[in-house]
């Protein structure tokens, strides 16, 4: 099914490319976002837009608030007690901090891939159908189709198609992470958040995940937090540089890495600190 859709999307991409980059739809609009852990002011006056069918990379040194920000986008940050926020994050025009906005509702549209591969101690099949089952899909045929589509989407199908009932813990680290991506694709999200998805992986697995991200952006909007600047340069369309809870610079990735406006951005990407 995806093979039928992909060419159209590419065509659409070429029309909008370069000159009309800004004409793309915004998935997320962050306005004056502040976030505190108790008295620790972790995010300060964040203004950031995320565009459809792009990879947005978030870079910055440890403790700069990049993970906090990405976890705010699906309100995962609320699992930490004593978190307070002001300002708003709009997802498709709706403020996600609105009391009437159910967090479960938001997360059916916004999937997340975590730093450490975290498959459930269940079979590969059960891992992928977890999300759809949660959302009430019981039809075996539909579930089987979802499993195949998601595992193909995560470039894992060929490696596991003969052992779907095996425990996911028997997979390698890189395979586990792609399984987690498949699990995320299974809920057919709109946005995929990736919090340093390759930091626990070896270089070859990292490469596979990076290639996957390039394919996935045709259908999804991807936001990826990374410690690895080369990775951001390789795979992203836009890059935001965070420092001490602030967005120092946010621009097209080419510009950030070739001609940064801010001195601090330049120092960071040239490896003078961080």
């Amino acid at each position: 099914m995806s093979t039928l859709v992909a060419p159209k999307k590419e065509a659409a991409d070429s029309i909008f490319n370069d000159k009309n980059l800004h004409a793309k739809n915004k998935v997320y609009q962050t306005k004056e976002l502040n976030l505190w852990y108790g008295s620790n002011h972790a995010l300060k006056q964040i203004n950031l837009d995320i565009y459809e069918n792009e990879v947005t990379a978030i870079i910055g040194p440890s403790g700069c608030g990049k993970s906090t920000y990405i976890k705010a986008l699906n309100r995962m940050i609320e699992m930490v007690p004593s978190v307070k926020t002001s300002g708003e994050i709009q997802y498709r025009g709706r403020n996600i901090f609105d009391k009437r906005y159910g967090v479960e509702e938001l997360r059916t549209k916004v999937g997340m891939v975590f730093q450490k591969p975290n498959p459930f101690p269940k079979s590969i099949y059960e891992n992928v159908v977890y999300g759809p089952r949660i959302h009430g899909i019981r039809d075996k045929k539909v579930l089987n189709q979802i499993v195949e589509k998601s595992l193909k989407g995560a470039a894992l199908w060929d490696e596991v198609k003969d052992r779907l009932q095996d425990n996911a813990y028997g997979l390698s680290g890189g395979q586990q992470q792609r399984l987690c991506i498949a699990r995320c694709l299974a809920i057919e999200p709109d946005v995929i958040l990736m919090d340093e998805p390759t930091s626990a992986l070896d270089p070859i697995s990292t490469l596979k995940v990076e290639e996957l991200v390039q394919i996935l952006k045709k259908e999804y909007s991807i936001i990826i937090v990374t410690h690895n600047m080369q990775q951001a340069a390789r795979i992203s369309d836009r890059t935001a540089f965070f420092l001490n809870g602030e967005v120092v610079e946010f621009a097209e990735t080419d510009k950030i890495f070739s001609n940064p406006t801010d001195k601090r951005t330049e120092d960071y990407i040239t490896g003078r600190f961080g």
Partner: protein
Amino acid sequence: MKLINHDQVLKKMSPRKWKNSVFKGLFMFATALALVVLAILLYRIITQGIGYLDWQFLQSLPSRNPEQAGIKTALIGTIWLMGVVAPVTLILGVGTAIYLEEYASKNKFTSLIQINISNLAGVPSIVFGLLGLTVFVRALTLGTSVLAAGLTMSLLVLPIIIVASQEAIRSVPMELREASFGMGANKWQTIVRVVMPAALPGILTGTILALSRAIGETAPLVVLGLPLFLAFLPQSVFDMFTVLPMQIYNWTSRPQEEFHAVAAGGIIVLLIMLIVMNSIAVLIRNKFQKRF
């Protein structure tokens, strides 16, 4: 300049080695002592009671004649007691553990509850007996029934099950919950589909160990006034009954030498029950140990 004189170090080497072996011997002795005491106990009981242990012993009612005495009422009574304690403690204990670990916010009030639960686990069992006597036997007029004793025993072992279940729930990695929440699952779905399956082996192990404690306890039941001699079986949870430790206590307190041997037979039955239950607990633990 060197700060360490290696000749000196070598000279002190042999007293160091000697100390090491002395302590090793000391700890081995401590372990051996416990094993020896256990072996003597088992030897005495088995040589004394094995002669009485046969099918007829398990199937006979207690009797004034040691040759005809059996433990049927006590054995059936113990099973009845388990029938009340197991469901009550499992439901209340696991429910409490889930609430404390997954739902309750961490504040002073919940930590007060937490401390109290841990303290309750250390309260002498006779105190629970007095509580059971006041509340279940007298206030609720349940008498010395299976139900009254079962509820008293449940109170006694609840803290053990709660603490064991809490530990099992806490050992489920946070990342698994995050993965579940991240896909839009709510708390209940996450508990049922992720936390509980992963925590279940730990919870079952704790429950079985707590039940084996309940089987062996005598003091609270003495306080409740359970009969020492009973020649009929309970027909419902509201009937009088007696349990293995009570029956054993009855036989050992009799003057006739023969009854002491009958008691030893009863002890063997009790020990076998406990060993079987604990083995099941160990098996469950080993089978599911390497999950994460």
